[in-house]
């Protein structure tokens, strides 16, 4: 009797072992094939093969990783909305806290990349408020710093990165960019006082001198008209010529400062894209 029970038990164990160890074999192969495609940067086929795997076996053990890899592939192909859709599916099918965290971080990174930084900040705030991720604050702040960079707010980016480590490359870079940026309001203000000064501040010397020259000319003619008691002439010159050039001078100062800032930001972004070796969105 004992012998028979033991035998049955052994047979049951063997059957159970056999069925669980071999049941997913061809799906294993399919998943591994998709991973190899991803590693060889063939993102289109990666998505196809993982979709095929999920279609034929939606309850497999790879469901989270499959959705996550599809999301990453779409992200590599700059299909950001599709990427977010699949990272969200990965989050829904996550089986651990780490998987939930990773999929949310991926969604945040895609939002940073596509410059929907407002959404990224909201998601990071909710992650930070979640007690399950209290030990991930530095990593969340790291992405917050990146979000500030993509929002063109280098000052806050520098502050956030410095809060993690003040000596890192990102901290130094963000601070340098923030120092290099021209103040748009300063450029405009000095142009209010001395026409052309804002342009000269941004390095546009010829434009600044021309602007100064035009304003001096029309200013002179306006005053001369009033001195000559040709009041109507004076009003018309002041209104249609002097004020037009004065306003143009202010607009130019603002435009040049913004253009120069864009060049500085783009140069820094270019460095981050091609030369920075750390983790990027």
């Amino acid at each position, binding site marked *: 009797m004992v012998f*028979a029970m033991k*035998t*049955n038990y052994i*047979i049951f164990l*063997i*059957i159970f072992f*056999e*069925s669980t160890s*071999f*049941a*997913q*074999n*061809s*799906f294993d192969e*399919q998943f591994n094939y998709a991973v190899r495609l991803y590693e060889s940067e063939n993102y289109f086929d990666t*998505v*196809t093969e993982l*979709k*095929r795997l999920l*279609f*034929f076996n939606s309850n497999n053990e790879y469901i989270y990783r499959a959705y996550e890899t599809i999301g990453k592939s779409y992200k590599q192909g700059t299909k950001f909305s599709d990427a977010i859709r699949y990272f969200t599916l990965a989050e829904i099918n996550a089986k651990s806290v780490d998987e939930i965290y990773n999929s949310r971080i991926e969604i945040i990174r895609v939002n940073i990349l596509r410059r929907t930084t407002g959404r990224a900040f909201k998601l990071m705030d909710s992650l930070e408020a979640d007690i399950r991720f209290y030990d991930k604050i530095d990593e969340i702040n790291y992405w917050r710093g990146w979000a500030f960079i993509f929002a063109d707010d280098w000052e806050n980016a520098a502050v956030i990165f410095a809060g993690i480590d003040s000596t890192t490359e990102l901290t130094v870079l963000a601070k340098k960019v923030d120092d290099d940026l021209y103040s748009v309001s300063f450029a405009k203000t000095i142009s209010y006082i001395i026409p052309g000064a804002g342009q000269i501040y941004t390095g546009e010397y010829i434009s600044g001198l021309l602007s100064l020259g035009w304003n001096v000319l029309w200013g002179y*003619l306006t005053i*001369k*008209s009033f001195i*000559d008691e*040709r009041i*109507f*002439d004076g009003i*018309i010159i002041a209104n*249609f*010529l002097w004020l037009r050039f004065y306003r143009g001078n202010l607009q130019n100062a603002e435009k040049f400062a913004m253009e120069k800032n864009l060049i500085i930001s783009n140069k820094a972004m270019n460095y981050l894209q091609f030369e920075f070796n750390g983790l990027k969105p």
Partner: protein
Amino acid sequence: MKITELLFFFMLFTSVNHAQTKDFDFSSPINIKKFADFLFCDRDYLRAALEYERLISSDVNDTLLFKIALSYSIIGDYPFAIKYFGNIPSPSSYVNAAKLELIKTYYLMNDYYGVRSFYNDTLIEEINKYQLEGNKLFNFSYLFTKDELPSKEEFLFPFNLSEKNEVSEYYDWKQDPPYKSSTIAGIMSALIPGSGKIYAGEIGDGIVAFITTTVFSFIAYDNFKAGHNTRGWVWAGVAALFYAGNIYGSVAAAQVHNAKITFEFNDGLNVFLQKNNYYTPAYGFCDEN
């Protein structure tokens, strides 16, 4: 004996089990088709087309070709769409739908002469259920080109009563578009500053151009008269600039007006056609989902 039997059944069960799971054939035609159908209904048309294409060598049929063509048409790969729609064999339930889809594809490529020549070569001789739809698209193509329009009666013939009013408006608009002549606008502004702009529909700009040019000219005249020659020349220059700008602006305003009219007209036509899905039917391939 019992143990031997059990072991036998175990071996049989596991071997069958392995055969079913370990060797699941993702590449069997039936599985490719199932997956392609899923992709098609999931609106992942490029992948669907590529999966269907894998079946061509083993199981080519008109539905398959039609779905491939439809997928390529939807994703905007029109040369491939034309190729596959053209390959639908003649005795097929999709052959007429494919012809209609081909006309739609020519529309999407803005090839209106292609629409007409295809219609004339293939559809006009055949009386079938898509003849009327083809005729509508054929007539519509005249609204996109500068070719002479057919008579109104002939043009409106294929359209039903509910469509006739709207289509008739498009026809009238095309027949007599509310364009403004840029030459007339320029001449008018040369004679009376700003009048060309008013003619082109920019009334506010026209009045401003009239006032500024007149005022600057008067100031120039008054300065010369008072012996202030420097200021006189400055104002004469400014007045001349405003005068020339007013003529140029009037010509440009007429051109912008015409471009706007053409854009709105073509946009309206496209919206109308899209609303009616270019008169192509719904095929119901994904209805069961």
